[in-house]
């Protein structure tokens, strides 16, 4: 049984670092992948950003001051890497209301690893119409199951604002999808 502090010590010690980093990958690779995938949409892009995220985590671990939880810190890095990626590829991948959401949906449909049904496509269409930040907030809460407090740290937005944005998005989705119960959302 290990505490987070012990685990971080291992991650920063030359003796145990490699083994501990493998453990870190086991714990967070998949979570961070899905978090990134929803931000950058395609699998190929998510793969690139995920690798950059873990490289940055590895290099930054000695400087990690433990002011936040390890996983919050890693989500923040993943989020920042995703935003950096979107900014760098602004002309290709950045989506907003101004783009009439074509970029988001086009890239989604063209991705070899998207095979959503009608409901999934409908949900993506609704999400694509939301402002970026509002969409990120909804995805982080609904799919990544992050706490509002953690999201506030990651996005640097007040908890109250996050809550209001999230519930507003939920209402929009409920209004637009009649068969909302078809969405799979089974929590462990």
């Amino acid at each position, binding site marked *: *049984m*290990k*505490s*987070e502090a*012990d*685990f971080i010590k291992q991650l920063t010690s030359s003796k145990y670092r*490699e083994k501990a*980093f*493998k*453990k870190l*990958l*086991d*714990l967070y*690779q*998949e*979570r961070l*992948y*899905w978090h990134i*995938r*929803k931000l950058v949409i395609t*699998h190929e892009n998510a*793969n690139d950003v*995920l*690798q950059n995220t*873990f*490289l940055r985590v*590895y*290099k930054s671990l000695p400087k990690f001051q433990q002011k936040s939880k*390890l996983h919050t810190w890693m989500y923040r890095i993943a989020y920042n890497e995703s935003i950096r990626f979107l900014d760098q590829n602004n002309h290709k991948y950045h989506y907003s209301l101004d783009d009439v959401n074509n970029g988001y949906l086009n890239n989604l449909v063209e991705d070899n*690893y*998207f*095979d*959503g*049904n009608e409901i*999934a*496509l409908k*949900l*993506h269409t609704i999400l694509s119409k939301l402002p970026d930040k509002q969409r990120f907030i909804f995805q982080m809460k609904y*799919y990544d199951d992050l706490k509002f407090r953690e999201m506030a740290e990651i996005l640097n937005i007040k908890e109250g604002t996050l809550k209001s944005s999230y519930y507003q998005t939920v209402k929009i989705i409920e209004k637009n999808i009649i068969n909302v119960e078809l*969405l*799979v*959302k*089974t*929590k*462990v």
Partner: protein
Amino acid sequence: MKKSILNTEKNKTLLKENRKAIHEKDLGLRVPKDYFSNSKNVILKKVSNSEVKVLYRKKYFLYSLAASVALIIALTIFKPNIFNPIKGGSSIVSDTINTIKSNTLVNGNEIFKVEDVSIAALFVEDDKMDEFANNYVLNDIISDISTSN
């Protein structure tokens, strides 16, 4: 008792399956077969490569530094004046020789004597110049007398 951050194996499997199901069924997002295990290896390889690069850069820097220090020491020992040459020193000497050579009153033997004295005079400090000149005249006279005898 410290709080565990590591989930039990059963919970971890359930969480992973649930996460995958949500993203596949709700959002239609899939991943290639064995993606996560392959990706893990790629990340580990990249991380170890980045570490080698950092070490290489550190060593490269140290080698460059050591070579620079060795070069400075070598130049200081074998060429002590390389960093502090006498500005225009060679031009002063050549100008003096040319002036003497162009003087038709001086014969061939005298040129060498005058050259010797002129060059030697370059290394005499100003306040000792009178003494140097007196010695030269004295030696010259003694030399002339002994030659004539």
